[in-house]
């Protein structure tokens, strides 16, 4: 394999890996940290992509248009997420019943998907990038699309921001404390309800951001919902529930592995994420560890 071919596949794998990370980041925060089983994560991702096409259609496929989409869509979705958390999901916390959360968020995902079809129709949508982002760089004979480089940089920044929020801020400290003992935190005078709402809204904003970023990669259709949800769960489970660094490494690992498998045996490439998840779960089982780490571990 030549260096150029190796680098081409590496760049393709990194691009795929960071798209996977964006689809998983919001779910990892909401499910992994808050413990809310969010089956609407794929619908949030899809809605983010559709809203991006609306902003771009109105403002234009310019740098300003994309900056507005990257800022406005996650903000709007965070507000909607906060509303959903306060009006619906909050009622499920006391029972600690994940089945309720599953059914509720599944219903929300159907509602979002139905609303998208009503508003946008079932047709294909596609958006273009500003000209400076649509090109590519040549590196050692390989081609690195500029947008792929931007997605990688943005992904690293988002991962760092989440890690910083959880482990270097008072909000993060309180969130982790709430995961460990919600009642004790409330007794100490912390408004745990508001804290959960804020973190849930942030998780939804992350999911929508993923949709905005991915809308430039390919076609925007209602199928983005399932296209995002399944890999998101695979990445979160493989990386370790609530472990943002693990999710990032899992997403990159799966993306790069899938890319190189495509080069050698393309038929098996789609199996790569499942194989990776199975291998990690088996390794945990053989090592005597729980398959999904206890969320209390996140708190610690």
């Amino acid at each position, binding site marked *: 394999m030549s260096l150029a071919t190796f680098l081409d596949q590496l760049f393709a794998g990194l691009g795929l890996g960071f798209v996977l990370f964006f689809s998983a980041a919001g779910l990892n925060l909401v499910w992994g940290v808050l413990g809310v089983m969010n089956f609407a994560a794929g619908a949030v991702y899809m809605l983010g992509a559709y809203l991006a096409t609306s902003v771009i259609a109105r403002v234009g496929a310019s740098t300003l248009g994309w900056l507005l989409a990257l800022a406005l869509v996650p903000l709007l979705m965070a507000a909607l997420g906060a509303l959903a958390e306060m009006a619906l999901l909050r009622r499920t916390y006391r029972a600690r019943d994940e089945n309720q959360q599953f059914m509720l968020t599944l219903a929300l995902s159907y509602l979002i998907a139905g609303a998208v079809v009503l508003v946008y129709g079932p047709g294909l949508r596609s958006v273009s990038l500003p000209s400076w982002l649509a090109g590519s760089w040549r590196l050692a004979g390989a081609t690195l699309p500029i947008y792929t480089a931007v997605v990688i940089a943005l992904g690293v920044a988002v991962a760092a921001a989440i890690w910083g929020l959880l482990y270097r801020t008072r909000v993060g400290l309180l969130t982790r404390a709430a995961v460990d003992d919600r009642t004790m935190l409330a007794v100490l005078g912390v408004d745990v309800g508001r804290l959960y709402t804020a973190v849930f809204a942030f998780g939804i904003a992350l999911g929508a951001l993923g949709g905005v970023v991915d809308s430039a990669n390919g076609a925007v259709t209602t199928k983005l919902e*399932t296209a995002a949800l399944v890999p998101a769960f695979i990445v979160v489970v493989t990386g370790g529930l609530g472990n943002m660094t693990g999710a990032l490494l899992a997403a990159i690992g799966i993306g790069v592995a899938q890319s190189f498998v495509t080069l050698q045996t393309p038929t098996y490439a789609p199996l790569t994420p499942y194989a990776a998840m199975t291998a990690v779960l088996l390794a945990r089982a053989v090592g005597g560890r729980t398959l999904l780490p206890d969320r209390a571990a996140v708190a610690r």
Partner: protein
Amino acid sequence: MVFGKRAAVVRATFACGLLVAVAAVALGCGSSKGSQNTVAAGQPIKIGYLASLTGFCSSFSQDYVKGAQQAIATINAEGGVLGHKLQLLVRDDKAEPNVGVSQARDLVLGEHVKFLAGTCTSAVGKSVTRLVANPSHVPYVVGVADPTIFTGSNSYVFGTIPTAAVEGANAAAFVRAHPQWKRVAVLAEDYSYGYEVSAAFRHNMQGAAQKIVSLEYAPSESPSYSSYISKLIAEKPDVVYNTLVAEDMVTFVKQAFPLGFFNVSRLFGPLDYVTIDAMAKPPVGQPGYGYYPAASMYSTPLAKKLTPLGTAVANSGSAGDGFNQVEIIAQGIEKAHSTEPTAVRGALSGGTVQMVQGWEKIHACNNLIAVPIAMGPVAAATKELPFAHFSPIELVDTNKYFTC
């Protein structure tokens, strides 16, 4: 991204097999009633229409319905058929065989439709074909590419688009006509259509001076085809016969531009209008083909009847196919002077029908209609044609690919 789609299809096929068996028995009972074959005076002739409004190919299924509804409106405005108005009953088959069979059964037994049309996936088409073939004898007009649906034993089923065998043969003929393309790569979708069309292509490339340097199957609905594109670039083919469809083709083209694919190779494949028009940057100059009838491709009386749907829908191709399916049923009833299924089948099979494309022959051996395939380089939108299209267009007569 749908991982393990083939496994899901296998499960769905097993599940619907049982459903088909049960439904076939039920339909058999229903068909024994004499009233099934006549429509009372003043009553409408009901046509059941399956559309994949959700699931795979939902992105263009509403246009199928709009085309079918336009045909109904046009025919009814002209007095209907044999004094009866036509009525369209639309059901969502979700692009799932078991759902399609269930909906078809309900349309026939519950709604007492006399005719069926629609769906855009071979999997649903195949299941419904088994259901309607025997013993209920409900004429079914469908636009799917699986050649195994259209056999002598399924003579109540009529096809409105070329099969994968015809499509692959035509693609091979086009590539062979360009001997300067010495290295040919094939990228096909990882499901039945992709396998069938690539097999037909390879079969018809046998003996050619050109070399097929690679054949890969890519998953549908993938968020990234970059690794496939990089692999193709490394193989340096002169042309890539790419049969990814709809949103997958959009994603492929979008990612191919920055990777420099079009600097080293050519893309050739099913670039129908609804797909290339959805691209923010269509692959101008690349050779493509489409067999779904966009109104602007034809100057025929029925093509003009798509005009009220508006430029975008009338040129989607899907609307034209939906329109054709209803027209064929209506013309069959007119020719037979009856709604009796065997009479309608007999009137259509081996005859000609007026379609958006013009007068076309229905081959008696398989009830497939030899519609033309439109080919040409992709051109950007113009003032006259405000959507991406082929220019110039060559309409290939597909009768030459029929052996009967």
